[in-house]
Protein backbone atom coordinates (compact mmCIF):
# COMPACT_ATOMS: atom_id res chain seq x y z
CA UNK A 1 0.00 0.00 0.00
CA UNK A 2 2.79 2.41 0.92
CA UNK A 3 4.67 1.60 -2.25
CA UNK A 4 1.59 2.47 -4.30
CA UNK A 5 1.28 5.71 -2.38
CA UNK A 6 4.81 6.73 -3.31
CA UNK A 7 4.21 5.80 -6.95
CA UNK A 8 1.03 7.83 -7.08
CA UNK A 9 2.62 10.78 -5.36
CA UNK A 10 5.39 10.78 -7.96
CA UNK A 11 2.99 10.42 -10.90
CA UNK A 12 0.72 13.25 -9.79
CA UNK A 13 3.69 15.55 -9.20
CA UNK A 14 4.99 14.78 -12.68
CA UNK A 15 1.62 15.12 -14.39
CA UNK A 16 0.79 18.49 -12.92
CA UNK A 17 4.33 19.79 -13.21
CA UNK A 18 4.25 19.19 -16.96
CA UNK A 19 3.01 22.48 -18.40
CA UNK A 20 1.39 20.80 -21.40
CA UNK A 21 -0.57 18.36 -19.29
CA UNK A 22 -3.31 20.64 -17.97
CA UNK A 23 -4.26 21.96 -21.42
CA UNK A 24 -4.18 18.41 -22.81
CA UNK A 25 -6.37 17.10 -20.04
CA UNK A 26 -8.89 19.90 -19.73
CA UNK A 27 -8.76 22.50 -22.47
CA UNK A 28 -8.42 20.22 -25.47
CA UNK A 29 -11.39 17.94 -24.71
CA UNK A 30 -13.64 20.93 -24.00
CA UNK A 31 -12.73 22.62 -27.26
CA UNK A 32 -13.20 19.37 -29.13
CA UNK A 33 -16.56 18.72 -27.50
CA UNK A 34 -17.78 22.21 -28.33
CA UNK A 35 -16.53 22.18 -31.93
CA UNK A 36 -17.48 18.61 -32.80
CA UNK A 37 -20.90 18.76 -31.24
CA UNK A 38 -21.85 21.70 -33.43
CA UNK A 39 -20.30 20.33 -36.58
CA UNK A 40 -20.82 16.57 -36.60
CA UNK A 41 -24.32 16.89 -37.97
CA UNK A 42 -26.48 14.82 -40.28
CA UNK A 43 -28.86 17.66 -40.98
CA UNK A 44 -28.65 19.43 -44.27
CA UNK A 45 -29.59 23.04 -44.35
CA UNK A 46 -29.28 25.39 -47.29
CA UNK A 47 -28.68 22.75 -49.93
CA UNK A 48 -27.95 24.55 -53.19
CA UNK A 49 -30.67 23.89 -55.72
CA UNK A 50 -31.02 24.97 -59.34
CA UNK A 51 -33.97 24.71 -61.70
CA UNK A 52 -34.31 24.04 -65.37
CA UNK A 53 -37.73 25.52 -65.90
CA UNK A 54 -38.80 24.75 -69.45
CA UNK A 55 -42.43 25.36 -68.60
CA UNK A 56 -42.08 29.02 -67.59
CA UNK A 57 -45.66 28.93 -66.36
CA UNK A 58 -47.64 29.93 -63.31
CA UNK A 59 -47.52 26.34 -62.01
CA UNK A 60 -43.79 25.98 -62.42
CA UNK A 61 -43.21 29.32 -60.67
CA UNK A 62 -45.45 28.18 -57.83
CA UNK A 63 -43.40 25.03 -57.47
CA UNK A 64 -40.14 27.00 -57.38
CA UNK A 65 -41.63 29.37 -54.82
CA UNK A 66 -42.32 26.40 -52.58
CA UNK A 67 -38.61 25.57 -52.63
CA UNK A 68 -37.76 29.20 -51.98
CA UNK A 69 -39.81 29.07 -48.81
CA UNK A 70 -38.04 26.00 -47.48
CA UNK A 71 -35.16 26.41 -45.00
CA UNK A 72 -33.46 23.39 -46.55
CA UNK A 73 -32.83 24.90 -49.95
CA UNK A 74 -31.15 27.93 -51.38
CA UNK A 75 -31.99 28.58 -55.00
CA UNK A 76 -28.85 29.07 -57.00
CA UNK A 77 -30.11 29.37 -60.52
CA UNK A 78 -32.77 28.97 -63.15
CA UNK A 79 -31.73 28.06 -66.66
CA UNK A 80 -32.98 26.38 -69.81
CA UNK A 81 -30.56 23.51 -70.01
CA UNK A 82 -29.05 21.03 -67.58
CA UNK A 83 -25.80 21.43 -69.53
CA UNK A 84 -25.43 24.90 -68.10
CA UNK A 85 -25.04 23.40 -64.64
CA UNK A 86 -22.42 20.80 -65.56
CA UNK A 87 -19.57 22.83 -64.19
CA UNK A 88 -21.39 23.96 -61.03
CA UNK A 89 -22.35 20.36 -60.26
CA UNK A 90 -18.76 19.27 -60.78
CA UNK A 91 -17.46 22.01 -58.48
CA UNK A 92 -20.06 21.18 -55.87
CA UNK A 93 -21.64 24.65 -56.14
CA UNK A 94 -24.98 23.04 -56.83
CA UNK A 95 -26.23 19.99 -54.97
CA UNK A 96 -29.48 19.28 -56.69
CA UNK A 97 -31.20 20.15 -59.99
CA UNK A 98 -34.90 19.97 -60.73
CA UNK A 99 -35.99 19.95 -64.35
CA UNK A 100 -39.55 21.00 -65.09
CA UNK A 101 -40.74 19.91 -68.58
CA UNK A 102 -42.35 22.36 -71.01
CA UNK A 103 -45.69 20.52 -70.93
CA UNK A 104 -45.78 20.81 -67.12
CA UNK A 105 -48.70 23.21 -66.83
CA UNK A 106 -50.67 21.98 -69.82
CA UNK A 107 -50.51 18.41 -68.52
CA UNK A 108 -51.64 19.47 -65.08
CA UNK A 109 -54.51 21.52 -66.44
CA UNK A 110 -55.63 18.65 -68.64
CA UNK A 111 -55.46 16.17 -65.81
CA UNK A 112 -52.56 14.24 -67.31
CA UNK A 113 -49.59 13.21 -65.29
CA UNK A 114 -46.25 14.80 -65.93
CA UNK A 115 -42.65 14.08 -65.02
CA UNK A 116 -40.30 16.21 -63.00
CA UNK A 117 -36.66 15.19 -63.14
CA UNK A 118 -34.58 15.35 -59.96
CA UNK A 119 -30.79 15.16 -60.24
CA UNK A 120 -28.62 15.15 -57.14
CA UNK A 121 -24.90 15.14 -56.46
CA UNK A 122 -24.49 11.73 -54.85
CA UNK A 123 -20.77 11.88 -54.07
CA UNK A 124 -21.90 11.85 -50.46
CA UNK A 125 -24.60 9.21 -50.66
CA UNK A 126 -26.34 9.89 -47.38
CA UNK A 127 -26.40 13.64 -48.01
CA UNK A 128 -27.91 13.02 -51.46
CA UNK A 129 -30.54 10.79 -49.88
CA UNK A 130 -31.49 13.46 -47.41
CA UNK A 131 -31.67 16.26 -49.97
CA UNK A 132 -33.74 14.12 -52.29
CA UNK A 133 -36.06 13.24 -49.44
CA UNK A 134 -36.55 16.90 -48.57
CA UNK A 135 -37.19 17.76 -52.22
CA UNK A 136 -39.63 14.87 -52.58
CA UNK A 137 -41.52 16.09 -49.55
CA UNK A 138 -42.01 19.49 -51.18
CA UNK A 139 -42.99 17.93 -54.51
CA UNK A 140 -45.42 15.64 -52.72
CA UNK A 141 -47.12 18.58 -50.99
CA UNK A 142 -47.31 20.44 -54.27
CA UNK A 143 -48.81 17.40 -55.98
CA UNK A 144 -51.38 17.06 -53.25
CA UNK A 145 -52.46 20.69 -53.58
CA UNK A 146 -52.99 20.21 -57.30
CA UNK A 147 -55.09 17.11 -56.73
CA UNK A 148 -57.16 18.92 -54.13
CA UNK A 149 -57.66 21.84 -56.49
CA UNK A 150 -58.50 19.62 -59.45
CA UNK A 151 -60.85 17.16 -57.77
CA UNK A 152 -62.10 19.37 -55.00
CA UNK A 153 -60.95 16.97 -52.30
CA UNK A 154 -57.70 15.55 -51.00
CA UNK A 155 -57.66 12.13 -52.58
CA UNK A 156 -54.14 11.30 -51.45
CA UNK A 157 -54.80 11.63 -47.76
CA UNK A 158 -57.89 9.47 -47.78
CA UNK A 159 -55.97 6.26 -47.80
CA UNK A 160 -53.13 5.61 -45.39
CA UNK A 161 -52.07 8.44 -43.17
CA UNK A 162 -48.67 8.33 -41.65
CA UNK A 163 -48.06 10.07 -38.37
CA UNK A 164 -44.41 9.64 -37.51
CA UNK A 165 -43.33 10.03 -33.88
CA UNK A 166 -39.65 10.09 -33.10
CA UNK A 167 -39.14 8.47 -29.75
CA UNK A 168 -36.29 9.37 -27.38
CA UNK A 169 -35.32 12.32 -29.56
CA UNK A 170 -38.64 13.80 -30.66
CA UNK A 171 -37.19 16.85 -32.35
CA UNK A 172 -34.59 14.79 -34.20
CA UNK A 173 -31.95 16.94 -32.58
CA UNK A 174 -28.68 15.53 -33.81
CA UNK A 175 -26.79 16.99 -30.84
CA UNK A 176 -28.77 14.81 -28.48
CA UNK A 177 -27.48 11.87 -30.45
CA UNK A 178 -23.91 13.02 -31.03
CA UNK A 179 -22.83 14.65 -27.78
CA UNK A 180 -22.87 11.50 -25.62
CA UNK A 181 -20.89 9.68 -28.32
CA UNK A 182 -18.34 12.43 -28.80
CA UNK A 183 -17.87 12.61 -25.05
CA UNK A 184 -17.07 8.90 -24.91
CA UNK A 185 -14.60 9.34 -27.73
CA UNK A 186 -12.75 12.16 -26.03
CA UNK A 187 -12.32 10.46 -22.67
CA UNK A 188 -11.28 7.25 -24.41
CA UNK A 189 -8.55 9.04 -26.34
CA UNK A 190 -7.31 10.89 -23.25
CA UNK A 191 -7.20 7.69 -21.22
CA UNK A 192 -5.58 5.38 -23.74
CA UNK A 193 -3.04 7.83 -25.07
CA UNK A 194 -1.89 9.28 -21.78
CA UNK A 195 -1.52 5.93 -20.02
CA UNK A 196 0.25 4.38 -23.00
CA UNK A 197 2.66 7.24 -23.52
CA UNK A 198 3.45 7.54 -19.84
CA UNK A 199 4.87 4.04 -19.43
CA UNK A 200 6.77 4.18 -22.71
CA UNK A 201 8.29 7.47 -21.60
CA UNK A 202 9.86 5.69 -18.62
CA UNK A 203 11.31 3.20 -21.08
CA UNK A 204 12.70 5.99 -23.23
CA UNK A 205 14.40 7.87 -20.42
CA UNK A 206 15.62 4.65 -18.84
CA UNK A 207 13.99 4.99 -15.43
CA UNK A 208 11.94 1.86 -15.99
CA UNK A 209 15.12 -0.16 -15.59
CA UNK A 210 15.79 1.47 -12.26
CA UNK A 211 12.24 0.64 -11.16
CA UNK A 212 12.66 -2.92 -12.38
CA UNK A 213 15.67 -3.55 -10.12
CA UNK A 214 13.61 -2.55 -7.11
CA UNK A 215 11.45 -5.15 -5.38
CA UNK A 216 8.34 -3.32 -6.58
CA UNK A 217 5.49 -5.68 -7.50
CA UNK A 218 3.91 -5.70 -10.95
CA UNK A 219 0.46 -4.90 -9.62
CA UNK A 220 1.81 -1.99 -7.59
CA UNK A 221 3.49 -0.56 -10.64
CA UNK A 222 0.37 -0.96 -12.76
CA UNK A 223 -1.95 0.57 -10.19
CA UNK A 224 0.53 3.40 -9.75
CA UNK A 225 0.49 4.02 -13.47
CA UNK A 226 -3.21 3.62 -14.18
CA UNK A 227 -4.86 5.24 -11.20
CA UNK A 228 -3.77 8.84 -11.90
CA UNK A 229 -5.10 8.67 -15.45
CA UNK A 230 -8.24 6.95 -14.30
CA UNK A 231 -8.92 9.89 -12.01
CA UNK A 232 -8.18 12.37 -14.80
CA UNK A 233 -10.40 10.59 -17.31
CA UNK A 234 -13.27 10.38 -14.81
CA UNK A 235 -12.95 14.08 -13.99
CA UNK A 236 -12.97 14.78 -17.72
CA UNK A 237 -16.10 12.69 -18.17
CA UNK A 238 -17.94 14.39 -15.32
CA UNK A 239 -16.89 17.74 -16.69
CA UNK A 240 -18.11 16.75 -20.14
CA UNK A 241 -21.48 15.57 -18.79
CA UNK A 242 -21.98 18.89 -17.03
CA UNK A 243 -21.10 20.69 -20.25
CA UNK A 244 -23.49 18.47 -22.23
CA UNK A 245 -26.27 19.30 -19.80
CA UNK A 246 -25.61 23.02 -19.51
CA UNK A 247 -24.46 23.97 -23.00
CA UNK A 248 -26.31 21.48 -25.18
CA UNK A 249 -29.22 20.74 -22.87
CA UNK A 250 -28.73 17.04 -23.52
CA UNK A 251 -31.24 15.11 -21.45
CA UNK A 252 -29.75 12.66 -18.97
CA UNK A 253 -32.76 10.43 -18.45
CA UNK A 254 -30.99 7.50 -16.83
CA UNK A 255 -29.16 7.39 -13.54
CA UNK A 256 -25.99 9.44 -13.32
CA UNK A 257 -24.65 6.95 -10.77
CA UNK A 258 -25.08 4.14 -13.31
CA UNK A 259 -23.26 6.17 -15.96
CA UNK A 260 -20.36 6.93 -13.63
CA UNK A 261 -20.20 3.40 -12.28
CA UNK A 262 -19.94 1.83 -15.72
CA UNK A 263 -17.63 4.63 -16.88
CA UNK A 264 -15.33 3.67 -14.01
CA UNK A 265 -15.07 0.14 -15.39
CA UNK A 266 -14.85 1.37 -18.96
CA UNK A 267 -11.95 3.67 -18.12
CA UNK A 268 -10.03 0.72 -16.68
CA UNK A 269 -10.56 -1.00 -20.03
CA UNK A 270 -9.32 1.97 -22.03
CA UNK A 271 -6.34 2.56 -19.73
CA UNK A 272 -5.40 -1.12 -19.86
CA UNK A 273 -5.56 -0.87 -23.63
CA UNK A 274 -3.08 2.01 -23.52
CA UNK A 275 -0.90 0.11 -21.08
CA UNK A 276 -0.93 -2.94 -23.31
CA UNK A 277 0.24 -0.82 -26.25
CA UNK A 278 3.04 0.53 -24.08
CA UNK A 279 4.22 -2.99 -23.28
CA UNK A 280 4.62 -3.86 -26.96
CA UNK A 281 6.39 -0.63 -27.97
CA UNK A 282 9.70 0.99 -27.06
CA UNK A 283 9.19 4.64 -27.93
CA UNK A 284 6.42 7.18 -27.49
CA UNK A 285 6.30 7.58 -31.25
CA UNK A 286 5.61 3.89 -31.79
CA UNK A 287 3.02 3.90 -29.03
CA UNK A 288 1.32 6.88 -30.62
CA UNK A 289 1.11 5.25 -34.03
CA UNK A 290 -0.13 1.93 -32.71
CA UNK A 291 -2.72 3.67 -30.57
CA UNK A 292 -3.91 5.65 -33.58
CA UNK A 293 -4.08 2.55 -35.69
CA UNK A 294 -6.55 1.01 -33.27
CA UNK A 295 -8.46 4.12 -32.37
CA UNK A 296 -9.12 5.30 -35.92
CA UNK A 297 -10.74 1.92 -36.58
CA UNK A 298 -12.57 1.95 -33.26
CA UNK A 299 -13.91 5.47 -33.76
CA UNK A 300 -15.11 5.03 -37.33
CA UNK A 301 -16.70 1.68 -36.49
CA UNK A 302 -18.08 2.74 -33.13
CA UNK A 303 -21.50 3.69 -34.43
CA UNK A 304 -20.87 7.31 -33.61
CA UNK A 305 -21.27 8.48 -37.19
CA UNK A 306 -22.82 5.57 -39.02
CA UNK A 307 -25.08 2.93 -37.52
CA UNK A 308 -23.37 -0.36 -36.68
CA UNK A 309 -26.44 -2.20 -38.03
CA UNK A 310 -25.60 -0.95 -41.49
CA UNK A 311 -22.10 -2.40 -41.48
CA UNK A 312 -21.29 -5.70 -43.17
CA UNK A 313 -21.43 -8.80 -40.99
CA UNK A 314 -17.64 -9.16 -40.76
CA UNK A 315 -17.33 -5.55 -39.61
CA UNK A 316 -19.87 -6.19 -36.90
CA UNK A 317 -17.74 -9.14 -35.80
CA UNK A 318 -14.64 -6.92 -35.62
CA UNK A 319 -16.68 -4.60 -33.44
CA UNK A 320 -16.62 -7.26 -30.72
CA UNK A 321 -13.22 -5.85 -29.77
CA UNK A 322 -14.29 -2.23 -30.11
CA UNK A 323 -14.49 -0.76 -26.61
CA UNK A 324 -15.82 2.56 -27.89
CA UNK A 325 -18.77 0.86 -29.60
CA UNK A 326 -19.85 -0.74 -26.31
CA UNK A 327 -19.65 2.44 -24.34
CA UNK A 328 -21.31 4.70 -26.89
CA UNK A 329 -24.15 2.20 -27.08
CA UNK A 330 -24.41 2.17 -23.30
CA UNK A 331 -24.22 5.95 -22.96
CA UNK A 332 -26.94 6.58 -25.56
CA UNK A 333 -29.19 3.98 -23.99
CA UNK A 334 -28.85 5.45 -20.52
CA UNK A 335 -28.72 9.13 -21.37
CA UNK A 336 -31.38 9.26 -24.09
CA UNK A 337 -33.62 6.29 -23.33
CA UNK A 338 -33.26 6.29 -19.59
CA UNK A 339 -32.26 2.63 -19.56
CA UNK A 340 -31.68 1.20 -16.10
CA UNK A 341 -29.22 -1.39 -14.84
CA UNK A 342 -31.30 -4.36 -16.00
CA UNK A 343 -31.69 -2.92 -19.50
CA UNK A 344 -27.97 -2.53 -20.00
CA UNK A 345 -26.66 -5.47 -18.01
CA UNK A 346 -25.37 -7.18 -21.16
CA UNK A 347 -23.38 -4.09 -22.13
CA UNK A 348 -22.02 -3.82 -18.59
CA UNK A 349 -21.04 -7.47 -18.56
CA UNK A 350 -19.22 -7.15 -21.88
CA UNK A 351 -17.35 -4.02 -20.80
CA UNK A 352 -16.37 -5.68 -17.52
CA UNK A 353 -15.15 -8.89 -19.10
CA UNK A 354 -13.22 -6.93 -21.70
CA UNK A 355 -11.66 -4.70 -19.04
CA UNK A 356 -10.51 -7.69 -17.00
CA UNK A 357 -9.08 -9.37 -20.11
CA UNK A 358 -7.18 -6.29 -21.22
CA UNK A 359 -5.83 -5.62 -17.74
CA UNK A 360 -4.76 -9.25 -17.48
CA UNK A 361 -3.03 -9.15 -20.86
CA UNK A 362 -1.10 -6.02 -20.03
CA UNK A 363 -0.05 -7.39 -16.64
CA UNK A 364 1.23 -10.54 -18.33
CA UNK A 365 2.99 -8.54 -21.04
CA UNK A 366 4.62 -6.13 -18.61
CA UNK A 367 7.81 -7.79 -17.51
CA UNK A 368 10.19 -6.72 -14.88
CA UNK A 369 12.93 -8.50 -16.80
CA UNK A 370 13.38 -8.02 -20.50
Amino acid sequence: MRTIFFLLQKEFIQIFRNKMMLPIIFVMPIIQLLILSYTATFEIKNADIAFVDLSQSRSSRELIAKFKGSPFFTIKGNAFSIKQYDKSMLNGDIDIIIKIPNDFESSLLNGRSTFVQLISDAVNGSAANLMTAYALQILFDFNRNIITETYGKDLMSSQIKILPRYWFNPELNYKTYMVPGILVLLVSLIGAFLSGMNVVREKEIGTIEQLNVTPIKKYQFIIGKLFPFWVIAMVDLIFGLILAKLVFAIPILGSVALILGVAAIYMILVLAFGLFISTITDTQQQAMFIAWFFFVIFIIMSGLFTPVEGMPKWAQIINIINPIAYFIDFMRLVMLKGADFVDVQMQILKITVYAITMLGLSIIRYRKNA
Partner: protein
Amino acid sequence: METAVRVVNLVKKFGNFVANDNLNFEVSKGEVFGFLGANGAGKTTAIKILCGLSKPTSGTVQVAGFDAYHQSEKIKQNIGYMSQKFSLYDDLTIKENIRFYGGIYGLSSKFIKQKTDEYITQLQLEQYQKRFVKDLPLGIKQKLAFSVANIHNPSIIFLDEPTSGVDPITRRQFWDLIYAEAHKGKTIFVSTHYMDEAEYCDRITIMVDGKIAALGTPNNLKRDYKANNISEIFLLLARGIKSENH
Protein backbone atom coordinates in the same frame (compact mmCIF):
# COMPACT_ATOMS: atom_id res chain seq x y z
CA MET B 1 35.62 -15.65 2.53
CA GLU B 2 31.93 -15.25 1.83
CA THR B 3 30.84 -15.20 -1.80
CA ALA B 4 28.63 -12.32 -2.95
CA VAL B 5 28.34 -13.27 -6.61
CA ARG B 6 28.91 -16.68 -8.11
CA VAL B 7 28.75 -17.21 -11.87
CA VAL B 8 29.33 -20.64 -13.43
CA ASN B 9 29.22 -21.25 -17.19
CA LEU B 10 26.93 -18.28 -17.79
CA VAL B 11 25.70 -18.08 -21.37
CA LYS B 12 23.36 -15.45 -22.74
CA LYS B 13 22.21 -15.59 -26.34
CA PHE B 14 20.04 -13.20 -28.30
CA GLY B 15 18.96 -15.32 -31.24
CA ASN B 16 22.23 -16.48 -32.78
CA PHE B 17 24.26 -13.76 -31.17
CA VAL B 18 26.19 -14.91 -28.11
CA ALA B 19 26.49 -11.90 -25.82
CA ASN B 20 27.97 -13.79 -22.87
CA ASP B 21 30.02 -16.83 -23.80
CA ASN B 22 30.57 -19.16 -20.86
CA LEU B 23 31.47 -16.72 -18.10
CA ASN B 24 32.95 -18.02 -14.84
CA PHE B 25 33.85 -15.88 -11.86
CA GLU B 26 33.22 -15.28 -8.21
CA VAL B 27 33.12 -12.04 -6.28
CA SER B 28 33.82 -12.08 -2.57
CA LYS B 29 31.98 -10.04 -0.04
CA GLY B 30 33.52 -6.59 0.41
CA GLU B 31 35.46 -6.74 -2.81
CA VAL B 32 35.64 -3.98 -5.42
CA PHE B 33 35.31 -5.99 -8.59
CA GLY B 34 36.04 -4.30 -11.90
CA PHE B 35 34.34 -5.39 -15.08
CA LEU B 36 36.32 -4.10 -18.04
CA GLY B 37 35.75 -4.31 -21.74
CA ALA B 38 35.17 -2.32 -24.89
CA ASN B 39 31.70 -1.19 -25.85
CA GLY B 40 29.70 -4.19 -26.92
CA ALA B 41 31.91 -6.69 -25.10
CA GLY B 42 28.92 -7.95 -23.11
CA LYS B 43 29.41 -6.15 -19.80
CA THR B 44 25.95 -4.63 -19.60
CA THR B 45 24.31 -7.91 -20.59
CA ALA B 46 26.07 -9.71 -17.75
CA ILE B 47 25.26 -7.00 -15.22
CA LYS B 48 21.59 -7.06 -16.18
CA ILE B 49 21.50 -10.80 -15.56
CA LEU B 50 23.16 -10.35 -12.18
CA CYS B 51 20.59 -7.71 -11.25
CA GLY B 52 17.63 -9.84 -12.24
CA LEU B 53 16.68 -7.61 -15.18
CA SER B 54 17.36 -10.37 -17.66
CA LYS B 55 17.35 -14.16 -17.51
CA PRO B 56 20.43 -16.17 -18.42
CA THR B 57 20.19 -18.64 -21.33
CA SER B 58 22.14 -21.23 -19.35
CA GLY B 59 24.59 -21.54 -16.48
CA THR B 60 24.42 -20.93 -12.76
CA VAL B 61 24.11 -17.42 -11.37
CA GLN B 62 23.89 -16.66 -7.67
CA VAL B 63 23.73 -13.19 -6.23
CA ALA B 64 23.65 -12.59 -2.46
CA GLY B 65 22.93 -16.30 -2.13
CA PHE B 66 19.86 -16.21 -4.39
CA ASP B 67 19.38 -17.90 -7.72
CA ALA B 68 18.93 -15.62 -10.74
CA TYR B 69 16.37 -17.90 -12.41
CA HIS B 70 13.82 -18.22 -9.65
CA GLN B 71 14.66 -15.69 -6.99
CA SER B 72 15.28 -12.54 -8.98
CA GLU B 73 12.87 -10.57 -6.78
CA LYS B 74 14.84 -11.66 -3.68
CA ILE B 75 18.04 -10.56 -5.39
CA LYS B 76 16.47 -7.15 -6.04
CA GLN B 77 15.96 -6.55 -2.34
CA ASN B 78 19.64 -7.05 -1.69
CA ILE B 79 21.27 -5.11 -4.47
CA GLY B 80 21.65 -1.55 -5.60
CA TYR B 81 21.94 -0.76 -9.29
CA MET B 82 23.05 2.26 -11.18
CA SER B 83 22.83 2.00 -14.94
CA GLN B 84 24.70 3.85 -17.65
CA LYS B 85 21.38 5.39 -18.60
CA PHE B 86 20.58 8.12 -16.12
CA SER B 87 18.02 6.79 -13.71
CA LEU B 88 16.70 9.71 -11.69
CA TYR B 89 13.60 11.65 -12.72
CA ASP B 90 14.60 14.89 -14.42
CA ASP B 91 11.36 16.62 -13.58
CA LEU B 92 11.55 15.90 -9.87
CA THR B 93 13.72 17.71 -7.32
CA ILE B 94 16.57 16.01 -5.44
CA LYS B 95 14.37 15.47 -2.40
CA GLU B 96 11.46 14.12 -4.44
CA ASN B 97 13.73 11.61 -6.15
CA ILE B 98 15.19 10.41 -2.87
CA ARG B 99 11.73 10.19 -1.29
CA PHE B 100 10.35 8.23 -4.23
CA TYR B 101 13.09 5.60 -4.38
CA GLY B 102 13.26 5.37 -0.59
CA GLY B 103 9.50 4.92 -0.58
CA ILE B 104 9.37 2.08 -3.06
CA TYR B 105 12.10 0.26 -1.15
CA GLY B 106 9.73 0.41 1.80
CA LEU B 107 11.86 2.67 4.00
CA SER B 108 10.20 4.67 6.76
CA SER B 109 9.51 8.35 6.21
CA LYS B 110 11.75 9.21 9.13
CA PHE B 111 14.60 7.21 7.66
CA ILE B 112 14.09 8.75 4.22
CA LYS B 113 14.23 12.24 5.75
CA GLN B 114 17.40 11.38 7.59
CA LYS B 115 18.98 9.94 4.43
CA THR B 116 17.96 13.00 2.42
CA ASP B 117 19.71 15.33 4.86
CA GLU B 118 22.71 13.05 4.91
CA TYR B 119 23.04 12.99 1.12
CA ILE B 120 22.55 16.71 0.77
CA THR B 121 25.33 17.38 3.27
CA GLN B 122 27.62 14.64 2.00
CA LEU B 123 27.33 15.63 -1.66
CA GLN B 124 27.21 19.37 -0.87
CA LEU B 125 23.88 19.84 -2.56
CA GLU B 126 22.55 22.60 -0.31
CA GLN B 127 22.48 25.14 -3.15
CA TYR B 128 20.67 22.72 -5.47
CA GLN B 129 17.93 21.61 -3.07
CA LYS B 130 15.06 23.36 -4.81
CA ARG B 131 16.18 22.61 -8.35
CA PHE B 132 14.94 19.92 -10.65
CA VAL B 133 17.40 17.16 -11.29
CA LYS B 134 17.61 18.12 -14.97
CA ASP B 135 19.28 21.37 -13.96
CA LEU B 136 22.10 19.72 -12.02
CA PRO B 137 25.62 19.30 -13.45
CA LEU B 138 26.23 15.78 -14.75
CA GLY B 139 28.84 14.95 -12.12
CA ILE B 140 26.45 15.80 -9.31
CA LYS B 141 23.66 13.86 -10.97
CA GLN B 142 25.86 10.76 -11.12
CA LYS B 143 26.90 11.06 -7.49
CA LEU B 144 23.29 11.53 -6.48
CA ALA B 145 22.24 8.54 -8.57
CA PHE B 146 24.85 6.45 -6.78
CA SER B 147 23.58 7.55 -3.38
CA VAL B 148 19.97 6.87 -4.36
CA ALA B 149 20.90 3.40 -5.67
CA ASN B 150 22.33 2.84 -2.23
CA ILE B 151 19.48 4.21 -0.13
CA HIS B 152 18.15 0.86 1.05
CA ASN B 153 21.58 -0.22 2.24
CA PRO B 154 22.06 -3.19 -0.11
CA SER B 155 24.91 -5.64 0.41
CA ILE B 156 26.00 -5.55 -3.25
CA ILE B 157 26.06 -2.52 -5.53
CA PHE B 158 26.19 -2.91 -9.29
CA LEU B 159 27.47 0.06 -11.23
CA ASP B 160 27.27 -0.05 -15.01
CA GLU B 161 29.71 2.52 -16.39
CA PRO B 162 28.83 5.04 -13.70
CA THR B 163 31.48 7.53 -14.74
CA SER B 164 31.02 7.77 -18.49
CA GLY B 165 31.10 11.34 -19.67
CA VAL B 166 32.17 12.70 -16.28
CA ASP B 167 35.22 14.95 -15.80
CA PRO B 168 38.37 13.47 -14.13
CA ILE B 169 37.90 15.35 -10.85
CA THR B 170 34.34 14.15 -10.45
CA ARG B 171 35.41 10.66 -11.40
CA ARG B 172 37.97 10.76 -8.59
CA GLN B 173 35.26 11.95 -6.17
CA PHE B 174 32.95 9.26 -7.43
CA TRP B 175 35.53 6.63 -6.61
CA ASP B 176 35.85 8.11 -3.13
CA LEU B 177 32.13 7.40 -2.72
CA ILE B 178 32.64 3.86 -3.97
CA TYR B 179 35.50 3.28 -1.52
CA ALA B 180 33.47 4.68 1.35
CA GLU B 181 30.79 2.05 0.68
CA ALA B 182 33.39 -0.70 0.21
CA HIS B 183 34.86 0.16 3.59
CA LYS B 184 31.47 -0.48 5.13
CA GLY B 185 31.80 -4.05 3.86
CA LYS B 186 29.70 -3.71 0.75
CA THR B 187 30.54 -5.55 -2.40
CA ILE B 188 31.02 -3.28 -5.40
CA PHE B 189 30.64 -4.61 -8.91
CA VAL B 190 31.62 -1.89 -11.34
CA SER B 191 31.95 -1.89 -15.10
CA THR B 192 33.98 0.73 -16.89
CA HIS B 193 35.92 1.37 -20.04
CA TYR B 194 38.31 3.77 -18.33
CA MET B 195 41.41 1.65 -17.85
CA ASP B 196 42.84 3.91 -15.15
CA GLU B 197 39.82 3.14 -13.00
CA ALA B 198 40.76 -0.51 -13.14
CA GLU B 199 43.69 0.28 -10.87
CA TYR B 200 41.21 1.24 -8.14
CA CYS B 201 39.68 -2.25 -8.11
CA ASP B 202 40.67 -5.18 -5.94
CA ARG B 203 40.27 -7.54 -8.86
CA ILE B 204 39.34 -7.08 -12.48
CA THR B 205 38.11 -9.10 -15.40
CA ILE B 206 38.65 -8.01 -18.95
CA MET B 207 35.87 -9.03 -21.32
CA VAL B 208 36.46 -9.31 -25.04
CA ASP B 209 33.72 -10.33 -27.44
CA GLY B 210 31.52 -11.90 -24.80
CA LYS B 211 34.30 -13.93 -23.18
CA ILE B 212 36.40 -13.33 -20.11
CA ALA B 213 39.91 -12.81 -21.46
CA ALA B 214 41.67 -12.10 -18.18
CA LEU B 215 40.83 -12.22 -14.48
CA GLY B 216 42.96 -11.25 -11.48
CA THR B 217 44.29 -8.41 -9.35
CA PRO B 218 45.64 -5.47 -11.34
CA ASN B 219 49.18 -6.12 -10.12
CA ASN B 220 49.11 -9.83 -10.94
CA LEU B 221 47.76 -9.13 -14.41
CA LYS B 222 50.44 -6.53 -15.08
CA ARG B 223 53.07 -9.00 -13.94
CA ASP B 224 51.64 -11.87 -16.00
CA TYR B 225 51.35 -9.83 -19.16
CA LYS B 226 54.57 -7.92 -18.49
CA ALA B 227 52.66 -4.68 -18.94
CA ASN B 228 53.08 -1.24 -17.37
CA ASN B 229 49.40 -0.61 -17.03
CA ILE B 230 45.99 -2.18 -17.56
CA SER B 231 45.47 -0.28 -20.76
CA GLU B 232 48.32 -2.18 -22.42
CA ILE B 233 46.87 -5.50 -21.35
CA PHE B 234 43.47 -4.50 -22.62
CA LEU B 235 44.78 -3.51 -26.05
CA LEU B 236 46.84 -6.68 -26.23
CA LEU B 237 43.84 -8.88 -25.44
CA ALA B 238 41.39 -7.01 -27.63
CA ARG B 239 43.73 -7.12 -30.62
CA GLY B 240 44.75 -10.70 -29.92
CA ILE B 241 41.22 -11.96 -30.12
CA LYS B 242 40.43 -9.78 -33.12
CA SER B 243 43.39 -11.23 -35.12
CA GLU B 244 42.44 -14.74 -34.06
CA ASN B 245 39.06 -14.26 -35.66
CA HIS B 246 40.26 -12.87 -38.95
